[in-house]
């Protein structure tokens, strides 16, 4: 079997169920692949791992992937299992924020490490300064949990539909206590959780073949996971080395993730790509990327895989 290593963007959780399912259910084996899945974590930049040669393919968000490309990392999107964005901004109703017009004067929390790019784009589209000056908002870096929102250190916080939002609910708040702004609804959504590899790999026919088989099996995994969310969540739990995940949370996460992968057969929709690029380019004075990227995606793999 051919060896292949996948670097995830984040820790083992249902967000990556498709890959774990493919591994557990033998879809990779069927394609004669021996896949290793490396969980990510804070401060692990998957691009570094990819370029360092410790992984062959990685899961990443398009904004940070494009930013990395601008910084000289020749990475290419080869598949896009996630059709829609799960990103949203969740505010406590009691702070009196009902629409984006109310943002000025408030503190918005977001993760950084490349995850802040969509929020900055949004704010610049709205024309708000982000340095806390008059008429603008204060952007606060928060860590990957929702405590700052619950403890009112920030008034709004970045959440994912499938994870942090439910942590807020689990903490004891109700939908009625919250106001949520989905990036999808605001027309500023960017592509999340695509598969990327290096240009170097794509120049190697053998590797292209491996990646094709990998994408095919992964998509099979994703479709299985969409249909059997509970079983998929169980599989993820089994692969969680930290033993920190809970069953209820992962099952719910899986059902939410299924909504995001639903519209995708694995091939990147160029329209989505262009929309993401537009959002990133339009971000005012300090845009995430400065020019339209060329060759940042390819259908070569998915075309071969999905036939």
């Amino acid at each position, binding site marked *: 079997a051919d060896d292949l290593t996948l670097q995830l963007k984040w820790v083992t959780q249902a967000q990556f169920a498709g890959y774990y399912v493919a591994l557990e259910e033998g879809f990779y084996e069927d394609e004669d692949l021996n896949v290793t899945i490396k969980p990510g974590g804070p401060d692990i930049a998957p691009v570094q791992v990819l370029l360092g040669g410790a992984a062959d393919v990685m899961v990443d968000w398009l904004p940070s992937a494009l930013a990395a490309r601008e910084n000289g990392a020749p990475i290419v999107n080869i598949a896009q299992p996630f059709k829609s964005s799960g990103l949203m901004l969740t505010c406590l109703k009691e702070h009196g924020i009902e629409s984006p017009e109310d943002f000025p004067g408030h503190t918005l929390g977001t993760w950084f490490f490349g995850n802040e790019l969509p929020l900055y784009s949004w704010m610049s589209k709205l024309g708000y300064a982000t340095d806390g000056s008059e008429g603008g908002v204060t952007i606060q*870096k928060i860590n990957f949990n929702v405590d700052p929102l619950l403890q009112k250190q920030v008034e709004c916080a970045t959440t994912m539909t499938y994870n942090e939002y439910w942590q807020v609910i689990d903490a004891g708040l109700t939908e009625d206590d919250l106001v949520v702004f989905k990036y999808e609804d605001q027309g500023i959504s960017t592509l999340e959780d695509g598969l990327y590899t290096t240009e170097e790999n794509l120049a190697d026919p053998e590797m292209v073949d491996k990646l094709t088989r990998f994408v095919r099996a992964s998509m099979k995994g994703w479709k299985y996971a969409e249909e059997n969310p509970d079983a998929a969540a169980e599989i993820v739990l089994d692969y969680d080395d930290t033993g920190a995940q809970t069953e209820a949370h992962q099952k719910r996460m899986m059902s939410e993730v299924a909504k995001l992968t639903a519209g995708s057969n694995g091939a990147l929709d160029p329209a989505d790509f262009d929309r993401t690029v537009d959002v990133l380019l339009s971000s005012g004075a300090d845009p995430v990327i400065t020019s339209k990227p060329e060759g940042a995606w390819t259908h070569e793999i998915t075309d071969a895989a999905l036939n």
Partner: protein
Amino acid sequence: MSYRDLKYGRTADMLLRMDGIFLPIACVVSAGWIDPSLGMIVAVWLGAWWVNAWIASYDMSITRLAAPVLFGATLLVLWEMAVRLYNIPSVILPAPSAIAARMAASPDILWADLVQTVFKGALSGYLIGCGAAVLTAIAIDRSPFLQRGLLPVGNFVAALPIVGVAPIMVMWFNFGWESKAAVVVIMIFFPMLVNTVEGLKATEAMQRDLMKTYSAGYWQTLFKLRLPAAMPFIFNGLKITTTLALIGAIVAEFFGSPVLGMGFRISTSIGLLELELVWAEIVVAAVVGSMFYGGVALLERMVTFWHPSQRG
């Protein structure tokens, strides 16, 4: 020449001088045989070391400065060579020249981060932590009961890993520099306390007996005998904790900070693959940290000039 000879056994120097021809050439040749680039790197390294050994054999204040500088410069050259010869991608390890360029390009970011992290976070935490530790050491010094109780528990608390404590401090003290100072205080308090308590015990029996014959009071013994005698230990603590304070402040920023600070920059720029900026911050941290340490070491020399280890 006094007992210096023993201090710097000649063996190593001789090795370099006598076999100065054969051994290095053998190294270079064998390394070059494995890989020509490696051969070049080894050659530069050995050459620089030889020069350094030669410089170090002269004991002048200028060589005291030149030796470490040369050593550092050698490391930088080797780094640059390695990056170029092996085509290491800059998103994994940028070359020193690229880092230097970045430092020249964004001094304002670096300065603002420095102020936030070092002057607000680390320094205030350092002063509070060391002050509190010394006062606590003096306070519990009179009570063997408290010492026996507090020190083990204190060791336990000191062993709480900073990565676990920092998020909690951020939760309690918010995102500003105060939480960083709190982390620094927790990190340095016990090392400092232990050193001071140890130091307060470090008097010789005869020195204590002398004070007894004067029927000196507790405070007199403290100020005239025990604190001076404790100074080598206290400075040991002060020196160790300089680096702890800096690391503590930076690492704490990983767990919550305003959108500036060295830790903030380091932790978030990796995600954007701005590795040059990351390394620029690391360089600043290393330089500032070394200066901090050097400053305290200088103070130590002035205060504990009498100690055998300072008299050389």
